[in-house]
């Protein structure tokens, strides 16, 4: 009897990390639900990436190449030379702890190694040991440690519990960018053949077929045609869509999430209706069929390789500029990396809205405009006839997706659109410390939105869901709006767990609902076939439902 554990002993045994031992000695446990599956060799072979092999994360032996240590250390040296930021971020941190409680993964997991300062230390300790004099001499006295396989496993575990959202860097007095460390750390992992199935499969598919989902050109076309027919069924308007049309003024590129998975599909219908309404001279490419870029979640090199299709296709089709759909990391890649990687785009023109004449000066270099900038400008110039009452059934709050918001400052445009397509009073902000620059990540960005990773995603997305729950309970919010395809894919499961009463929508779905065409049929439902409130009744009867 006396040997049975008591509740407090059980509870104490929860000290699943740290207690009396230093962080270096506490190693992660790979429990199902807490790790991403290893990539199958075929995807690596498809893109000629090193060391393709069958391996599994819970295995003791990860079958690393014999010279893995050399590869990692040489890789680190190479990156220290190429990226001044890396060396700076390693050297400059004073462990002030400002970042420590700002990470959604720390807040949700309660795991101290998810404090950004400590996550960075996982890499920094190796840098110190092999690249600094003091670390070589004094070892763990100064936080340096030897590189062994357990370190690599730790990197794999924690570098996939960073979504590169950069919330921590906002609070860091030196601006240390954890996303950059994660990106380079993942590059190092990939250099010894440690990749994630979900990311690598998307990369392989995108590289060989055109989109992450691996859709063939005809399947892609088929799907968009279906959306056009759906638009006609609901609104009576059949958008005219062209594919790979040379001489179009604008090339439109959306993330593949918007054409295969609900609710992104309704956002795509919104795009088509908008373009039809303004008579935009645009085309869609079956080659540059992917706005997202999962390559960016493996390495800069692979990000560049996947990204090049955008400019190549724009050049081939002879368009003037590129319009991008509602996407998060795509926007960061296009706005901040594309010109450096694959530019200069001197074959394109500085984007000008053909409808309003507005010059998008912010897009002078990369020649690509985000659709919320484009639509907000249309509304500002009174070019759209909108009936917000058609969104009366939607009480919305807006999630600032990390990349467009924190990285690009795209705060006002989506809100401007929302305020014009929703009835007054139907838009509610979440608390200030959870939006705009301080927005909480969805917990599934940077390629970690695999279903096997669900538990960790639930933890990482909890701070965001907590704020959504607040506005739901206080103001009756029933929809979460966002301008990112990953958000649209991952928020439904997250909210089903934490706030099941709240649904997810893209902003252009709301635009599609509200747009009033001259020749349209009587609208009684929204794009999702849900009944409109106060329609199908006598005029003037608002909110009668």
């Amino acid at each position, binding site marked *: 009897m006396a040997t049975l554990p008591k509740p407090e002993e059980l509870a104490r045994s929860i*000290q699943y990390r740290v207690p009396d031992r230093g962080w270096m000695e506490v190693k992660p446990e790979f429990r199902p639900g807490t790790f991403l599956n290893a990539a199958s060799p075929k995807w690596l072979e498809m893109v000629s990436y090193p060391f393709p092999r069958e391996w599994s994360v819970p295995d003791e032996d990860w079958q690393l190449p014999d010279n893995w240590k050399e590869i990692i250390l040489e890789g680190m040296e190479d990156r220290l030379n190429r990226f001044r930021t890396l060396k700076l971020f390693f050297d400059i941190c004073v462990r002030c702890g400002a970042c420590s409680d700002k990470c959604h993964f720390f807040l949700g997991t309660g795991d101290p190694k998810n404090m950004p300062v400590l996550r960075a230390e996982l890499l920094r300790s190796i840098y110190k040991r092999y690249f600094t004099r003091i670390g070589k001499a004094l070892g763990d006295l100064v936080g340096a440690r030897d590189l062994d396989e357990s370190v690599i496993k730790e990197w794999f575990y924690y570098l996939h519990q960073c979504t590169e959202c950069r919330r921590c860097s906002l609070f860091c007095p030196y601006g240390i960018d954890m996303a950059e460390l994660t990106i380079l750390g993942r590059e190092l992992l990939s250099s010894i053949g440690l990749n994630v199935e979900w990311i690598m499969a998307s990369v392989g598919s995108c590289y060989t077929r055109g989109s992450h989902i691996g859709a063939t050109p005809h399947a892609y076309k088929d799907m968009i045609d279906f959306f056009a027919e759906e638009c006609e069924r609901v609104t009576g308007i059949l958008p005219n869509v062209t594919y790979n049309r040379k001489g179009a003024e604008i090339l439109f590129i959306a993330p593949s999430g918007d054409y295969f998975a609900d609710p992104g599909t309704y956002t795509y219908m919104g795009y088509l209706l908008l373009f039809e309404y303004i008579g935009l001279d645009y085309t869609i490419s079956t080659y540059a069929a992917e706005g997202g870029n999962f390559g960016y979640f493996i390495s800069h090199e692979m990000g560049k390789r996947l990204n090049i299709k955008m400019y190549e296709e724009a050049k081939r089709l002879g368009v003037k500029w590129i319009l991008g759909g509602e996407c998060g990391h795509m926007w960061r890649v296009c706005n901040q990396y594309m010109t450096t990687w694959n530019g200069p785009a001197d074959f394109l023109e500085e984007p000008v809205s053909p409808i309003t004449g507005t010059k998008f000066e912010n897009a002078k270099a990369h020649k690509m405009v985000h659709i919320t900038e484009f639509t907000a400008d249309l509304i500002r110039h009174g070019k759209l006839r909108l009936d917000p009452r058609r969104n009366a059934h939607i009480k919305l709050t807006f999630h600032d997706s990390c990349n467009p918001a924190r990285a690009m400052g795209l705060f006002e445009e989506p809100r401007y659109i929302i305020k014009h397509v929703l009835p007054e009073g139907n838009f509610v902000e979440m608390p200030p410390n959870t939006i705009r620059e301080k927005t909480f990540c969805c917990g599934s960005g940077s390629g970690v939105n695999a279903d096997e990773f669900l538990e960790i995603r639930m933890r990482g997305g909890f701070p965001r869901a907590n704020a959504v729950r607040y506005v739901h309970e206080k103001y009756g919010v029933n929809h979460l709006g966002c301008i990112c395809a990953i958000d649209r894919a991952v928020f439904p499961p997250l909210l089903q767990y934490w706030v099941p009463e709240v649904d997810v929508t893209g902003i252009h779905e709301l635009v599609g609902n509200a747009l009033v065409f001259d020749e349209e049929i009587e609208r009684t439902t929204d794009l999702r076939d849900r009944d409109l409130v106060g329609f199908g009744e006598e005029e003037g009867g608002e909110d009668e439902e």
Partner: protein
Amino acid sequence: MKLSHLLSQRKLTIFERWLDLIFSSYPPETTRFLKKEKDRFNNPVAYRLSQGARGLVDALVSGATVEEVSRYLDEIIRIKAVQDFSPSQALAFVFLLKKVIREELAPEIRADTGLAAEMLDLESQIDGLALLGFDVYVKRREKLYDIRVNEVKAKVSGLLRKAGINVTHI
């Protein structure tokens, strides 16, 4: 009778000590943070755990329906059900309430043996909480599996819709 009076007098202390123990089930660095940061949005785990614990202590003192109690349990368990806890670890917090009450009321219990019977009854009630906790825990885990299946379907939901298949029917 007397015990319930004592409980309602010491409600706040019992709640605070219990919450302290619940927080202590996390690593020390995390425990420190959970206790320190008071903003409900900057420290969502602590906020939800404390909401649940406060509700349960109130329920024990003033009574509550099974639905209400389950809702308070859910505030805590839905977090622990997705964190790094085994089922026993996730539910251990319920029994820690016994420990807190025993320690908090130790002098009174020692002084007045008449309290023992009431104490036993109270402990049975806490056992009841634990049993309800099992229900909540399993429900949360089932929900997680459901979500995972739904997510797999949702990845191709556009295609299914196009093929005239209603995702909710498969």
